[in-house]
């Protein structure tokens, strides 16, 4: 069914994203209603104008996204930029860009779709402000050591290998490393190695030339080329097929590679941050990960402890997530009841911070009042924690003086752990841990 031009315009005018097309001289020839709303110009005022004079972004002179798409022969996705509105206000946007081709495969213009991310930026800034380090919560000694290490290496381009169980925050640590590095304003590309079938991974990382394989209809730059001058985050690096690992090793050592199907050697300057949740020693023993690659990646090793090994971070994390979700969901939930916190403190968190975040979000969505109660927590977490029944508050034995002191204070405060912890001068989660260790509770 052929769609008329008028209908196409109606469709484009109905969407929330701004859409603009330019001809090959970069003069605007289409500007939808959403673009008018975001930028503040009516379409009649911009049609025929050079796009750089309408958007007034520094990007136009340095890193035009349509030009990037033209050179790389690859669409640009989720590119963040600042543009200037009609009234001179700076608007942060996220855009996608593509080149328009005619039937002879010659470029005839470009298209940019974009959305105003001012609100999102406000949320990000608010969350970052509330965090301990670049959006990460960590008051435990182990996390503090990681933050110190990131500060120490910020002037270095050495490879980093981040290890940790699933859900511990390897990607956020990688983000923090990139943000504090000298390449923070350069391209930052992320690849999860495990999502690509082996026969496509090489093309994804190193690119390919037209005709290299059945679906290779045009030349395509790989992630290493897109990250040139910047940083590449390789998540789940130990899942990389063994036969591809020498290629990765070569790029790390020499900065050179060839696109699939091509013999031209290309050179890039990329800082690599890698991550894995595999046990690396096991992977090396099984021969799944090459030793030479491991040593090349592991110049700076970072191991993130599982959440259960840093209980003092649990309550700050819970409060951080509550604050974040209150902004995202625009709900006035600002606190969590002691019983809920007790349950969360007693759980092992096999899924680590990600599982905790999901649990808080679940409770958040279900809650109606301004406080998260134990009843609203996920059932599988509540059920795994046995009832908080003290073994006996009159238990008499020759146990440590500490046990007696804790019992006395709990008794004094009618088992209100918040007040007891305050009197003892320790955190609630630390109190909880001591109570379990000293067999005050199961």
């Amino acid at each position, binding site marked *: 069914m052929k769609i008329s031009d008028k209908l196409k315009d109606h469709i484009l005018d109905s969407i929330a994203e701004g859409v603009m097309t330019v001809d090959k001289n*970069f003069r605007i020839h289409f500007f939808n209603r959403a673009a008018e709303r975001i930028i503040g110009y009516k379409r009649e005022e911009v049609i025929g104008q050079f796009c750089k004079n309408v958007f007034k972004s520094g990007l136009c002179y340095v890193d*035009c996204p349509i030009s990037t798409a033209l050179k790389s022969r690859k669409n640009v996705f989720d590119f963040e930029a600042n543009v200037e509105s009609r009234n001179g206000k700076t608007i942060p946007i996220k855009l996608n860009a593509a080149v328009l081709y005619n039937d002879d495969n*010659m*470029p005839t213009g*470009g298209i940019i779709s974009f959305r105003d991310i001012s609100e999102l930026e406000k949320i990000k800034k608010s969350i970052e402000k509330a965090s301990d380090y670049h959006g990460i919560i960590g008051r435990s000694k182990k996390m503090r050591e990681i933050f110190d290490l990131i500060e120490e290496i910020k002037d270095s381009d050495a490879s980093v290998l981040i290890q940790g169980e699933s859900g511990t925050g390897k990607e956020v640590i990688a983000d923090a490393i990139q943000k504090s590095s000298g390449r923070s304003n350069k391209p930052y590309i992320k690849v999860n190695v495990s999502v690509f079938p082996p026969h496509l991974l090489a093309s994804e990382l190193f690119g390919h030339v037209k005709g290299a394989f059945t679906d290779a209809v045009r030349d395509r730059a790989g992630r290493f080329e897109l990250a040139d001058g910047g940083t590449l985050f390789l998540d789940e690096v130990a899942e990389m097929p063994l036969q591809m690992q020498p290629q990765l090793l070569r790029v790390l050592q020499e900065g050179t590679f060839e696109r699939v199907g091509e013999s031209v050697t290309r050179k890039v300057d990329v800082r690599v941050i890698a991550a894995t949740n595999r046990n690396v020693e096991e992977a090396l023993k099984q021969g799944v990960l090459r030793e030479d690659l491991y040593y090349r990646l592991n110049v700076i090793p970072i191991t993130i402890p599982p959440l259960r090994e840093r209980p003092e971070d649990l309550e700050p994390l819970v409060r951080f997530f509550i604050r974040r979700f209150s902004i995202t969901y625009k709900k006035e939930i600002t606190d969590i009841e002691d019983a809920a916190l007790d349950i969360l403190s007693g759980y092992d968190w096999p899924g680590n911070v990600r599982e905790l975040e999901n649990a808080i979000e679940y409770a958040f969505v279900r809650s109606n009042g301004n406080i998260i109660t134990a009843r609203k927590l996920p059932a599988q977490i509540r059920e795994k924690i046995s009832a908080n029944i003290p073994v006996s508050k009159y238990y008499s034995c020759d146990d440590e003086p500490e046990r007696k002191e804790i019992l006395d204070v709990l008794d004094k405060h009618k088992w209100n752990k918040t007040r007891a912890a305050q009197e003892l001068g320790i955190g609630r989660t630390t109190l909880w841990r001591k109570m379990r260790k000293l067999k005050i509770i199961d």
Partner: protein
Amino acid sequence: MCEMLGNQYFLARNFTEAEKEYEKCLAEHPENKLIRKKLIICHTQTGKFNQAINEFLYLAREDLDFLTHTDIVEDDCPCAEIIYEIEKDFLLNIEDSLTFTIMGILWAYCDLDRAYEYFKKSLEIKKDEKVEKILSLINEKTTTPNQGGNL
């Protein structure tokens, strides 16, 4: 692809890269006057002055009106900015014929009278066949009707 990429570089005032793309395009499409018109400006900025003069003369012979009718704002012509920078650098004390010739080329895009003055000054310092030819083309033009052009 080279024309569109060249256009983006030109708009971004990256004359070195624009020149590379436009040269590629012109090799494939020597009839494209618009590319040639922009390429002249690129040559003046990359130091390829003889090429700038040659291309200018070529285009002036072919279609002087196309060359000289440029709306600085509408066409985003960089000539005004470039002229300002040159005059600032030289503090208006230009003494060599080549600089006068280049200034003449740049002025020609929007003000033929000013261009004429600069070409004349160039000839006063040093005789040059090409500059003489340019002047003669301008003289011919001033006795014929104007036509539109763009950048």
